[in-house]
């Protein structure tokens, strides 16, 4: 783009046009002050300001938070963070949550595409029946199945165990994953499998050798969506695991820090910052992937 400033005065050797045209913006509409951008940026910053507040206050002592909640901390104290690992013992739950994420994701990215694949190449009737059967799951709210599910786990004698939670998370995730995978698979040309079949490949090995590697974009979506979901979940984990044994991170945070009447905000802020940090870093590194992955179910 050509400069909006006036022509350089010859002989001086540099551009002095700005001296004669103090308001070049009015001449070139592309150079206007981005008012909308400025307003929206401010609005956006205001929108996430609670997060900044949490970060700021996590370095203060509790009296300081009460006296001056929005000021910069006078001295940086890391005691709040230290307490998270000594008092709340957040390290083990963090590992638990990470392992749970990995276990659920591994189960989902194998079972869901297999089911979607087998549904795709079926005669009209059974294929459609299975599709409706799985899609119905998207409408079932957790509160409906919560109580009978607890009873079921009790009868199976796996109540309050990680295994029960894993089973629940996987089955809870299946409908959406199958939905996403089915949409993606319908774009894979049929010839691919047909040629595999001619070469003597059965359906199972066709899936693993030919189809599964092609599903990478979809798998990334599923990993982001459910990884984030399970890391952030506390309600279902709390109801299914109870409060007795080992915990996932947010359940632990909730149990220790959010007493209804007395709130140690300094620890809460530190906890919130620590538990949101992994998610935030990943989000900053791959914002596009995140946005795409998290809205995949709705846009399809």
């Amino acid at each position, binding site marked *: 783009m050509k400069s909006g400033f006036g022509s350089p005065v010859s002989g001086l050797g540099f551009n002095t046009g700005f001296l004669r045209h103090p308001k070049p913006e009015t001449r070139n509409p592309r150079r206007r002050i981005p008012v909308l951008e400025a307003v929206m*940026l401010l609005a956006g910053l205001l929108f996430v300001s609670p997060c900044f507040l949490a970060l700021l206050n996590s370095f203060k002592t509790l009296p300081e938070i009460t006296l001056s909640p929005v000021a910069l901390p006078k001295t940086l104290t890391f005691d709040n963070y230290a307490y998270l690992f000594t008092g709340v013992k957040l390290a083990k739950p963090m590992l638990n949550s990470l392992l749970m994420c990995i276990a659920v994701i591994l189960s989902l990215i194998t079972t869901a595409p297999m089911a979607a694949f087998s549904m795709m190449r079926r005669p009209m009737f059974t294929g459609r029946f299975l599709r409706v059967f799985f899609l119905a799951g998207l409408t*079932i709210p957790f509160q409906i199945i919560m109580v*009978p599910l607890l009873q*079921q786990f009790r009868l199976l004698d796996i109540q309050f165990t990680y295994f029960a939670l894993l089973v629940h998370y996987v089955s809870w995730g299946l409908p959406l994953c199958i939905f996403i995978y089915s949409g993606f698979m319908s774009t894979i040309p049929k010839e691919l499998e047909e040629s595999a079949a001619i070469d003597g490949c059965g359906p199972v090995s066709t899936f693993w050798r030919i189809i599964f590697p092609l599903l990478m974009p979809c798998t990334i979506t599923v990993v982001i969506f459910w990884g984030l979901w399970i890391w952030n979940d*506390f309600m279902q984990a709390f109801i299914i695991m109870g409060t007795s044994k080992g915990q996932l991170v947010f359940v632990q945070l909730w149990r220790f820090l959010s007493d209804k009447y007395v709130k140690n905000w300094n620890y809460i802020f530190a906890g919130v910052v620590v538990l949101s940090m992994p998610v935030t870093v990943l989000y900053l590194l791959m914002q596009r992937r995140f946005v795409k992955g998290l809205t995949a179910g*709705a846009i399809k």
Partner: protein
Amino acid sequence: MRKHLQKIAASLILCGPAVVLYGGFIVFPAILGFAYSLTNWNGWVNRPRYIGLTNFRDLISDTVLPQAIRFTLFETLLIVVFFSFGSMLLAILLDKLKIMKGLIRGLFFYPYILSILVGALLFQYMANFREGAVNTLLRAIGLGAFAQDWMGDTSLVAYFIFALVAWNGLGFFTTVYLANLQTIPTDLYEAARIDGAGALTVFTRIQFPMLLPTLTTNSVLALITGINLFPQIVVTTQGGPGWRTFTVGYYIYYLGVLNNRQGYAAAVSFVTFVALVGIAGIQVALLRRRQVAL
């Protein structure tokens, strides 16, 4: 024959795990829930006994339930209107940005990736009467008279819960609209510009009609969000003050998990589910019709 058997075995291997897990731990409990709604099951160790439709008859004389339904519907209304139109407006504004697009959109999307618990704790802190950030700010700028107990006041608490849900979800709904806005061909805008159409005309004649499919999706998703509102209640008000913020979801939790009235809880959840499916069905049908008309 052997080939046929092989085919069946292959389907079993491929489809089996998903059907067993999903059927056994989502569909089966949902059906089991209906069966339990016909029993007087109370307490995990007791054996449920069949009592017919007594639970459903009790629903009519329940005093908490109408209150919970009213509150849930009120929240749902706020949520649906805001996520349908508020986020549409935001998406249109964000679509107009020329510079810093990624940054600004990223800011609005950010709360969506945080846990509900994080949002709830931050909002609880901000809304606190004595030491909350909102009231401190109000007092600092001399508007201390406007300081409120945002979470404890019976007339404000509904908006507190709404603000919490709106903050968490806005990024998601806006992004879905943005994705749709980007599919509108640019020559439509060009043509409108040549014809001298203003921003409002562009909105009513081009953007709004083109966004209708997403409006359908978003309003249904917002409806589901609203009717299922429940973790937010557990971590903030726990139904209080009084019974003011009982949602239907929280009521089921309160009955089934906290108070060992599983049979009755199952009856409440069954009725809710039927109502949810009904309302969503009507909504989809209405919006579809409108889409065709435009």
